[in-house]
């Protein structure tokens, strides 16, 4: 674990680009079939969700390994999550909806509403992820960023709701998510998952 942190950051950065380069490669080699828009939208959505789970792994990894570098890439992974979520949303609008039927889609289709809410939370977290925002928010920053737990739950609901029949992958990812939430409850208590509540002054 003697990897220098800048190098580690570089490795994580490259790894986080793998889903995107995978899509680009398949597109180039025509491996996406006759309905590429649908496939790309699904793969970008899954990449966003995987990135989000990975982001939530960083704190436990740091505690288990005693290596603080994990926490140093957490923000980058969070921003990658938002990056993939943006691409996923754009792909959905462009390839699946063709920019039509927007009103009904975002008000009448519950699984879309869940995804959109999760996206809004991620946008808020991304916008307040920088030094300046952290400084300005002060002790309100942490309670605000606990919204990530709500975001991951919404994203999982959005994913699960799209299952037609076989929910095996949704269950598998759901178990990882629950584990990540459970270790936090164990270490920091239930209150550590509740967003927006300010810590008592002490």
């Amino acid at each position: 674990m003697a990897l220098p942190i800048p190098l580690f950051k570089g490795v994580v950065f490259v790894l986080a680009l793998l889903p995107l380069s995978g899509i680009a490669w398949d597109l180039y080699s025509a491996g996406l079939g006759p309905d590429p828009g649908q496939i790309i939208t699904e793969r970008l959505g899954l990449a966003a969700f995987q990135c989000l789970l990975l982001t939530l792994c960083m704190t436990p990894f740091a505690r288990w390994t005693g290596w603080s570098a994990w926490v140093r890439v957490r923000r980058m992974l969070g921003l990658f999550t938002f990056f993939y979520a943006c691409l996923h949303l754009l792909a959905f609008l462009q390839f699946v909806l063709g920019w039509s039927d927007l009103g009904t889609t975002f008000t009448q289709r519950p699984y879309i509403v869940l995804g959109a809410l999760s996206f809004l939370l991620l946008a808020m977290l991304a916008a307040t992820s920088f030094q300046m925002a952290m400084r300005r928010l002060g002790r309100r920053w942490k309670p605000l960023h606990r919204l990530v737990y709500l975001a991951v739950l919404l994203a999982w609901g959005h994913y699960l709701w799209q299952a037609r029949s076989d929910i095996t992958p949704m269950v598998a990812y759901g178990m990882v998510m629950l584990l990540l939430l459970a270790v936090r409850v164990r270490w920091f208590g239930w209150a550590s998952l509740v967003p927006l509540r300010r810590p008592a002054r002490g």
Partner: protein
Amino acid sequence: QSLPSTFVPEYSTREEQTPYEDATRYNNFYEFGTGKGDPARYAGEMTVEPWSVVVEGACGKPGTYALEDLLKPVEYQERVYRLRCVEAWSMVIPWIGVPLAEVLRRFEPGSNAKFVAFETLYDPEQMRGQRSLFSTIDWPYREGLRLDEAMNELSFLAVGLYGKTLPNQNGAPLRLVVPWKYGFKSIKSIVKIRFQEMRPVTTWESIAPNEYGFYANVNPEVDHPRWSQKRERRLPSGLLSPHWIETRKFNGYGEQVAHLYRGMDLSKFY
């Protein structure tokens, strides 16, 4: 394997046909997995020869028929049909087969045969999707038609496409094709045909009755709860130039089938 047949222009669309590679590599056949490429990848694990079909229920000639005997005295037809998936994409496919009515009539349906129920093969050893731990489908896959729908001139039993024997992923060796209904009605790899008085409960309606009805007629006026059915992507659809087209009621086959539903509220019987 090539299949000789007679082309039937009056039942064939002249729209551009979906390339063979797309029609045989982009499939929904959950018995082999839920990914679109899974059937082409894994359907080879299914043995389709020999094949027999059980015919039972309210008919004069029930029994177990070898596939060859089931189809024997008929001449194959080729018909180019539109296929509209409930997921809002569509293809144009040249099928080879026989009119369903011709086959059903030979079993002498009784006066109390109001519906025909169909079942797909159930064999988890050959069908890996059926081994999945968290599948909500209660196998085998079941479909059904009202008898007058089954006897309609468009209802077709396919054994081939594009001049060749059906590839396994397209429902070999015997599948239904009902082009005015969403694709999931066109049940694949049929092993059972039952004539019955009661309306059969079909697989998708038993999983999500608010999303998939028994009739499942293509209808742009009735949305799927999770997406619109007004348009469809005719495949192959490009990324930069998506091939959107308006969805037509009864998938454009209203002339042949609209009379079957006269007086029915199709937003209720979707």
